[in-house]
């Protein structure tokens, strides 16, 4: 259980570190694009 929490935490900071590299507008554009992609995936089911 402790290992799982640690892995989730590491994953969180890995994503955070990657995402933080982008500029504010790029971050907002990526978020919008990801959501559009998720919607396409959802509709495809």
């Amino acid at each position, binding site marked *: 259980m402790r290992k799982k929490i640690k892995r989730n935490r590491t994953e969180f900071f890995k994503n*955070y570190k990657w995402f*933080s590299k982008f*500029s504010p507008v790029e*971050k*907002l554009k*990526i*978020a*919008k694009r990801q*959501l559009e992609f998720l919607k396409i995936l959802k509709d495809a089911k």
Partner: protein
Amino acid sequence: MQNKELEKEFLFFKKLYEYKVKYLLIGRQACIIYGLPLYTFDYDIAVDNSEDNLEKIFMIAEELDLYPTKDKQEILNKKVFVFSLQNDIKIDVFCAKRYQTKDKKFIDFLEVFNRRLIKRDRKYGLVFYIPTIDDLINFKKINPDTKDLEDIKALKKIKDAYYKRRKD
């Protein structure tokens, strides 16, 4: 970067800065600017509810073909505390002077605005005003749903990590 290359929502924020509007980007979009990899379409802003500030927002909305969902006069008379500007994009505008969180704390807009963070995007020539992490957490506590609680947790994580790094 020319205006025509900017999407409408970014043009909206560019104009807010140019017209010196007192606003704060709140909600998930602010979390995204803090670096949280989240997904959202909604734009939420909190604004100073002075007549002058609200008139500027209406002027920008008109320039961008966005229409308020509530009567302008009612908004100016402070009878309305939230409305949307919408057409092909939608921006939710919170215009109360003070907000109360679920844990009975008060958020005074002007106090929070005065200690805001200014995030500049040089590539796109844009400036965003966002609350400090603690203030953003408080905004999320006003009427928290499951997503807000997750966001609060994530914001606290990056806050703790940031301070830990600073101490090291």
